[in-house]
């Protein structure tokens, strides 16, 4: 690969990413926020994110795959427990969960 490939690859990545976002601007202008279609798209997005989070915990790809399923489940439970014990403090919850995973993976 020559020197032109780096800018070409970066430009292709940027364009492929903005395509989804820009198409969203285009389509959103034609959708009434009070319509059923809009509510449906919102729920599709929530489902997509929940599916992504569940997959990242249960069946991670990439570096997290090195950790055990039990370690990830325990860490998630620790995060949720500390989160509720501190009256839903996000920072305490995620920090406790990450520390639990580090301790269990060591």
């Amino acid at each position, binding site marked *: 690969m020559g020197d032109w490939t*780096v800018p070409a690859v970066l430009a292709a990545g940027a364009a492929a990413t903005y395509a989804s*976002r820009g198409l969203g601007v285009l389509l*959103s202008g034609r*959708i009434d926020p009070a319509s059923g279609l809009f509510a449906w798209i919102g729920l599709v997005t929530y489902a997509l994110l929940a599916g992504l989070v569940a997959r990242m915990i249960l069946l991670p790809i990439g570096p997290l795959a090195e950790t055990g399923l039990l370690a990830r489940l325990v860490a998630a439970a620790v995060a949720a427990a500390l989160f509720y014990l501190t009256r839903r403090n996000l920072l305490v919850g995620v920090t406790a969960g990450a520390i639990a995973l580090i301790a269990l993976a060591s």
Partner: protein
Amino acid sequence: MGTDDTRSEPASGARANPVDAVASFRFGMREAVGPPAIIMGASFVGFGSLVRESGLSLSFGLVSSATGWALPGQLALVELYGTGAGLLAITLAVALANARLLPMSISALPLMRHPRHPRILYWIAAHFIAATGWALLMQRASILRQEHRLAYYFGLTLTLWVVSLLCTAVGWELAGRVPRTVTLGLVFLNPLYFLLLFLIDTPARGRLLALGFGAALGPLLHLATPDWGLLLCGLVAGTLAFALDRAAQRGRHG
């Protein structure tokens, strides 16, 4: 805003009710500084390390973070480029990895539109559509006036974007110097953050159903088809939640 889907109460801690665009922008910046910046920063530290471990330059990582600003696509870009894949294959993989941004963008923009805003701002705001900003906008929309939401969104996401760039550089510098388990802990902050964000307030029925079905179907459909599983999960679980929510509404009113 007559949709059933906007009823959820603002998350705990949302005292502010900004009075103008500047106050809304500042409110967005303040909200970014805290868990969102820490979690996003940690993820981009991980990305920066990966860039260096793949033998790529710091400027490659910075340009990718600045112009892409969506990690699944950036990870695909670095991994595929590292293995020598062709331009078309890389473009398709990035587009597929980031296709979730389309429904996010469609559902976020109508919340921010106002006749007084120049239209170009929507095209700029679209570049900053990502899961963290989207989820916070959905929660905060009910306490922000329609004309102030765009300012809130820019305050929030521009702060996160700057943090992402700084953390990409930090990760590139730190590559190889941090114990592996710590790196794993940082990567795990991301799913934990969204898990707790969804638990922070009891969502309206439709959203609750979508979250439940999505969490159940996501891993299953990923096993069936790793490339399309996530998008299928969104479509199937979202549609199921929508249908049940509508049916329950009709049952109550009809």
